[in-house]
C-alpha cells in the first residue's frame, strides 16, 4: 500500500558553510547585553581606549570625550565617571593591583587617580604628571609587579618614564620622529616596554639601559596604531595600515607573519582567549584586532590563521577582553560600545553563591506522592520509562503530520485547501499547494471559484510574493492569469483595486531592478571575457 505524502515545498539550497566551527560558536556566544548598549549609545564621541582591571572582578575603564568611565566588573553598568579632564582623555591603564588608574589627556598631562573612588576623592587626581609638550596618547603601567612607575608617550615624539610617587620624570627616551600613539609593557618584565609611532617604527626600551636608547627597532612600514606584547613576552604584534604583523623579539626582531585581511586601518589590538572544555589546551590565546572597516577579526597566531571575523555597523576604535574570558568590549568611533558577555557556567556560579553565604543550602527533596487512580497522571505513569538493555522495543508507527491543506487536498476540496494555505502565511507552503493543484489541473478552477474575500487574500499574496525570485516563475504567470480571469470582480471592489495598484507598483519596481541588473551585467561581461582570455 502506498503511503500518504504531505505536500512539501521545494527544497532550498543550503549553504555549505552553514555549520559554525567551534571557535566561531565561542565568539558568537558573547551576547550583547541590551541595557549597556542603550546607555552607551547616548553619547557620540569616540571610545578612544578600553582597559580591564587585572584583578577580579575586572572592572572596565573606558575613555570617552573628557571622561574616564568605570564599569563595575560584575554588572558592567556604567556607574560613574571617575575622572574628568580639561581635554579629551586617552589611554586608560590600570596598575597591576587594580587600585590605581592612569590616563593621559590631549594637552599632554598624565593623570593618576583611584580606580574605585570614594565620594571624597571623586574627580580628583592623586597625581598629575606634566612634561609632554603635546597630547599624551600613551600611558601604561608596567604589568608584572612594579607599582611605582609608569611610562607615557606623546605627540611630541618623546617617551617618558615616570616615578609616580614623586611626580617626577625619571628620564625621557628619544628616538621616535613622529607621534607616539601606542605602546605596551612587557607581561614578564617590569623593565621592558615597547612603543609604536607614526614614523613606522616600533622601539623596544629597557629602563635598565636607558642611556643607550632603544634596544631594538622594528619597521612596520605604516604608521603604527597599536602594539601589544603576546603573553610569552617574546613576541609582539603591531597594527598599522590595514595589516597586523607578528614579530619575534627574542629571535632578534624577526618578522613572523603579516596578517592582511582588514580593508581599512587597524586601530586596536588586544589579547583574547578561547576557553574550551577542560584539558591541556583548554585555553588558547588569540589576537583580536579591530579596524575602521567595522570588522573584528580573531587571529590564531600559533597557526597564523584567522579563525573568526565579525562585522559591526560602525568603524571600530578600541577593543578589550577581560582576563576571566567572560567579556569582550569593542568601542566605536561613534561612541557605541559593544559589550559582549558570555553566560558563566552554572556550576561555577553556584560555587560562588555558596561561598558568599558560607553555608550549603539544604534543599528538601519534595516528597514523592503515591499516585492513585483518582489522578490523571496515574494513567500516564511509566510512559517516560527508559527501555532497559534487554528490552524488546516495539516502535510506535510514526504518524504522518498533515496540515490543514493536506487534509483538504486528500478530500479533493481544492479551493478550501488553497485558501487554508493562503491563510497560513508561509509563502513556500502556498506555492507548494499551488504546484500540487497544477499537477491536478485544478488551479485555475480554484481561482475562478474564489469569492471576494478569498480573492483579496490571493491578490495580497501575489502582490507580496510574485516578485520573489524563488516563486516568480509560477506566480507571475498566475498573477497575469488571475487578472485576466477575474477582471470584473477586481474592477468592482475598491479593495481589489488597491491590491492591483500595489501589484503594479511592485512589478514596475522589479522591472527597474531587472533593468539595472542588465546594465550591470553589460558592464561586467566584457571584463569577464577579457579575464577569461588571459
Amino acid at each position, binding site marked *: *500500500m*502506498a*503511503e*500518504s*505524502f504531505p505536500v*512539501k515545498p*521545494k*527544497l532550498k539550497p543550503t549553504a*555549505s558553510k552553514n555549520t559554525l566551527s567551534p571557535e566561531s560558536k565561542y565568539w558568537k556566544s558573547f551576547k550583547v547585553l541590551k541595557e549597556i548598549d542603550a546607555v552607551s549609545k547616548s553619547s557620540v564621541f569616540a571610545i578612544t581606549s578600553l582597559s580591564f582591571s587585572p584583578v577580579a572582578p575586572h572592572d572596565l575603564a573606558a575613555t570617552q570625550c573628557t571622561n574616564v568611565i568605570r564599569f563595575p566588573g560584575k554588572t558592567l553598568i556604567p556607574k560613574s565617571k571617575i575622572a574628568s579632564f580639561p581635554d579629551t582623555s586617552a589611554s586608560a591603564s590600570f596598575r597591576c593591583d587594580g587600585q590605581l588608574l592612569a590616563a593621559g589627556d590631549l594637552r599632554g598631562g598624565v593623570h593618576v587617580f583611584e580606580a574605585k573612588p570614594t565620594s571624597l576623592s571623586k574627580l580628583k587626581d592623586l597625581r598629575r604628571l606634566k612634561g609632554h609638550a603635546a597630547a599624551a596618547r600613551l600611558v601604561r603601567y608596567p604589568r608584572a609587579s612594579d607599582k611605582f612607575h609608569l611610562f607615557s608617550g606623546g605627540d611630541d615624539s618623546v617617551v617618558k618614564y615616570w616615578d609616580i610617587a614623586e611626580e617626577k620624570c625619571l628620564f625621557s627616551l628619544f628616538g621616535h620622529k613622529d607621534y607616539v600613539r601606542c605602546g605596551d609593557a612587557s607581561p614578564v618584565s617590569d623593565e621592558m616596554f615597547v612603543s609604536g609611532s607614526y614614523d613606522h617604527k616600533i622601539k623596544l626600551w629597557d629602563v635598565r639601559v636607558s642611556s643607550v636608547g632603544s634596544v631594538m627597532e622594528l619597521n612596520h612600514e605604516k604608521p603604527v596604531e597599536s602594539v601589544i606584547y603576546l603573553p610569552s613576552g617574546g613576541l609582539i604584534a603591531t597594527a598599522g595600515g590595514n595589516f597586523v604583523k607578528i614579530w619575534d623579539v627574542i629571535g632578534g626582531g624577526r618578522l613572523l607573519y603579516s596578517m592582511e585581511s582588514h580593508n581599512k586601518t587597524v586601530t586596536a589590538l588586544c589579547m583574547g582567549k578561547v576557553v574550551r572544555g577542560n584539558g591541556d589546551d583548554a585555553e588558547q590565546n588569540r589576537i583580536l584586532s579591530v579596524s575602521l572597516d567595522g570588522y573584528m577579526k580573531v587571529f590564531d597566531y600559533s597557526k597564523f590563521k584567522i579563525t573568526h571575523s565579525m562585522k559591526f555597523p560602525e568603524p571600530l576604535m578600541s577593543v578589550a577582553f577581560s582576563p576571566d574570558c567572560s567579556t569582550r568590549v569593542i568601542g566605536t568611533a561613534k561612541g557605541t560600545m559593544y559589550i559582549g558577555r558570555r553566560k558563566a557556567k552554572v556550576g561555577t556560579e553556584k560555587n560562588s553563591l555558596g561561598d558568599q553565604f558560607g553555608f550549603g543550602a539544604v534543599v528538601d527533596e519534595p516528597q514523592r506522592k503515591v499516585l492513585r487512580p483518582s489522578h490523571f497522571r496515574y494513567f500516564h505513569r511509566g510512559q517516560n520509562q527508559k527501555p532497559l538493555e534487554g528490552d524488546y522495543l516495539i516502535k510506535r508507527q510514526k504518524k504522518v503530520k498533515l496540515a490543514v491543506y493536506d487534509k483538504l487536498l*486528500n478530500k479533493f476540496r481544492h479551493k478550501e485547501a488553497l485558501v487554508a494555505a493562503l491563510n497560513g502565511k508561509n509563502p513556500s507552503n502556498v506555492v507548494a499547494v*499551488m*504546484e*500540487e493543484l*497544477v*499537477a*491536478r*489541473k*485544478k*488551479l*485555475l478552477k480554484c481561482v475562478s471559484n474564489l469569492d471576494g474575500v478569498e480573492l483579496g487574500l490571493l491578490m495580497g499574496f501575489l502582490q507580496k510574493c510574485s516578485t520573489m525570485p524563488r516563486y516568480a*516563475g*509560477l506566480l507571475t*504567470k*498566475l498573477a497575469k*492569469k488571475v487578472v485576466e480571469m477575474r477582471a470584473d470582480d477586481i474592477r468592482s471592489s475598491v479593495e481589489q483595486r488597491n491590491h492591483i495598484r500595489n501589484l503594479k507598483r511592485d512589478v514596475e519596481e522589479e522591472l527597474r531592478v531587472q533593468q539595472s541588473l542588465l546594465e550591470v551585467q553589460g558592464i561586467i561581461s566584457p571584463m569577464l571575457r577579457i579575464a577569461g582570455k588571459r
Partner: protein
Amino acid sequence: MFTGGKSFVSSPPAFSNDAKRLLVCTGNTVSIFSTSTGLQTGELEGHGAKVTSVIVVPASTPASKVLCYCWTSSLDGNIKYWDFAAPELMKTIDIRFPIHSMVIPSLLSQTTESSGKIHDVFAYVSTEDVKLKADKTISVRGQIQKCNLTKSRLVGGLELAKIERPGSIIISPSGNQIGVYEKCKLLIWEIPAKDLDQHCFKKIRLHHTKSFTAMAFHPTERILAAGDVTGRILVWRGVGRKTFSNGKLINGGLNEDEDDSPGVRSGDDADSCTTWHWHSSQVNVLFFSSDGAYLYSGGREGVLVVWQLDTGKKKFLPRIGSPLLYYINSPDPTLSSISCTDNRIQLLRMPSMEIVRSISGIKLPSSRAEMYDAYGSGVVFNHTAGLIAVPTENYRVQFYSLFDDREVSEVQICERNHHPSDDITVKVNLVALSQDGSTMSTVETRLPEEGIGGLVSLKFWACDSQSKQFSLSTIIYEPHREAAISSIAFRPASHMVVSSSHGGDFKVWVRRQEIHPKDQNTGWTCHAVGSYKKKPLTAPITTLSFVGKSSYLVSASRGADPLLTMWSMSKLCTIWSYRLHAEAIASSMLNSTFAVLAPSKLLKSTGSTAGTSQGAEGAILLFNAENPVPFATWSVSKAQGGRLSFIQSSPFSDNDVADTTTAGELLAYVSGCHEYVVLSPHGDQDSKLSISRRRNSSSLDETERFGYASIYGELPEFTMEIDQTPFESMPQSEKTWKTIFSGPSHSLPPLPKLCSDFLESLLERRSTVVE
C-alpha cells in the same frame, strides 16, 4: 534463452484448497506462489498460448484439502487438468476454439451431492470463432459453449449465446447460475444441479442504460450486483423469481407484489433494483462476501470499498495505488487477494483489510504513455547486474532482476500522492543508471496547466552498498531553465553525467567529491555548460551508440525518413546505412557487434497493417560493425516501445557457466508490454544450457502455528514409548486462533461456528495420532 516478465493480472488467480498457494496465470504458464512468503514455488507449463482461466477443484471434505487439482483453459483451445502439487499434467481436452473464459459449475455444487455416483463434469466456455475472425464484416464473434469434460468433447449443437466480443463468464458461488455481461445488458442462465448433455436452459436478461463492466452473484439469495462504466453499482433483488422458480420458493424473498418493482426496467425479471454511486469511474471489481452480508467493489480509483448490503454503509481500503482488476477470496476466510493493473497481487488479511503481502511482477507500461511519447523513455538496463529499471505510473522506478524474474526493489522518485484515475501530469521521463549501478539519475516533468507551473527536476540517487536501496542525493530544479531535458547519459567508470536539453545547451554534472576530494558533501554539481550553435539538442537522430571498443558509431533517426547509419570515427565518414526504422540499438561491450530492433510495420513498408501499432511484429537484427549484412535475426512481437541491451551472462559469478569466453554477453529484449527474452546472441546450441534462469524453488516450509501453540508456544516434547510413530505432516486448519479474533466484532463469525471449527481441528489431530 529464457523469457520472463509476464503479466500476473491478465486473468483472475485462484487459491489452492488450503489457501497456502496461489495459482496465477502468467502468459503460457500457470505460476504457483506461496501465500506465506510471496515467492514462486512452481510452474505449470504446457499451454501453447496465453492461459485465460484457472479453476482449482474444491475440496468436498476436509480430508481432501490436500488434493491439488486444477483445470486451466487457454487461447490455444485446450483445457488441461493438472495436479499442481507435483506438478503434473493429467488430461488435455482440445476444443479448437480460443477459450477466453471458463467456469465449471458442477465443481461448486458437487459438495451438496450425497450419492457417490459420479456425474459428467461440464464446463461453460466463452470462445472466439476463429473462422469468423478473418471476416471483418461480422461483428459477433464470441459464443458461450458447453463442454463435457468427462468425455472430453464439446456438447454439440448447444450454443448458449452469441456475443460480440468473447468476455468473461461469471458464476455464482453456489454454482447454479452463470452470467455474462455485454454492453448494456446482463445475460443469466440457471444451471440445474444435475447437469446433462442436453438440457434446456432458462435465461433472463437485465438491462441498463450504461455499459456494464462487472457483475457478481450473491452466494445464497437471488441478488445480483453489476457495475457500469460511470461507477454506479446496481443491485437487483429477487432476480429471476418468475423464470427460475420451479415450484419451490426461495425463502427470505421480498413480498410478491406484481406491480411494485422499484427501479427495475420493464421486462426485466427482478423484484427491485437499487443503485449505489461512489466510484467516480468504471467499476472493475464486484464480489459478495461468503456470508452474503457485504459487497466488495473497486475500480480505477484504487480503493476497495466494502458495502454493507442491507444498509449501504461503506468502509474503505484506500491507497492501493493502482486500479483494481480482480478480487478473489480464498477457502481460508481470513485471506483474500486483489489483483491490480500494475501487475501486483495484494494478499489481504480479511476482516481487518490489511495488506499482508504483495506478489509483484514487472510493472506494465502506462496505458496512456503514448500520449507523451516525446517525453517518455522505456526501461533502462544495468549491464553488469542483469537488472532493468522500469519507470512506473505512480512516480516510482522498479528494479527487476532479469535472471530471477523477480522484483528487486522500488524507489519513490517523486513524493506525491498518486491517484490512478487522474490524468498524467507528473511523469518520470528519463532514468539513467551508471555502469556499476551505484548511481541513478532521473528526470521528472510536471506538465503545466495552461502554461503555468511546469517544472523539470533532475535528481541524482546514490545506492547504499549494504542495503542496495537508492537514496536521494541531489535535486536540481529546472536544470536547463525551462527547457525540457532530451536525454541524460552517464560516463562509464566515472561519476559524471551529461544532460542535454531542448533549449540548446548541455550540461556536465559531476559529483562534488570528484573536484574537491576532501569535501564531505556528496552532492552533484554542475561542472560545465556547453552548446552547439545554440541549436536544440533534439535532432531527428534518436539513438547514438559507440560500438563496443571499436572506432565505430551507430546512429538511428526516426520520422519520415528513418535511417540507420554506421559511421567510422577514425575516417569521419559513413560506412553503410539502411533506410530502416530502429526502435532500439544495443551494442556489445566486448566486441564490435550490435543489435537493432526494427518494427516490421516499417521494415516491410507494405502499409497494409494499419492500426496495430501496439502489437506490431518486429525483428532483432544482429550486425557486425564492418559488415552491413546482419549475421543473425530473430523475429519478436510487440516491438513498438521495446528495448534491447547486452547484459553480462554471469552477474554473480555463477560457477555453472562453463565457457565464459564465448557466451560472455547475452542479449536481452524487453517488449513493449514489458515481457522480456534473454538470449545468446551467437546462437550456439551448446551455450543454451549455460543460460538457464536461476530458479529458486522456495518450499512451503513456513508453517503457521495454531491452536494451543499459537497462544502459549510449543509444548516440550514428550518421550513416551507409545509415541514412537512420528507425526505425519497433517493438513493444517486454516482457522488459527490468532486470526479468528482479528477485525471488528460485527464481522466475527458466530460462536457456535468458531467452536465447531476449533473442535474439528483438534479431533482431526487426534485421529492422525491414532493412525
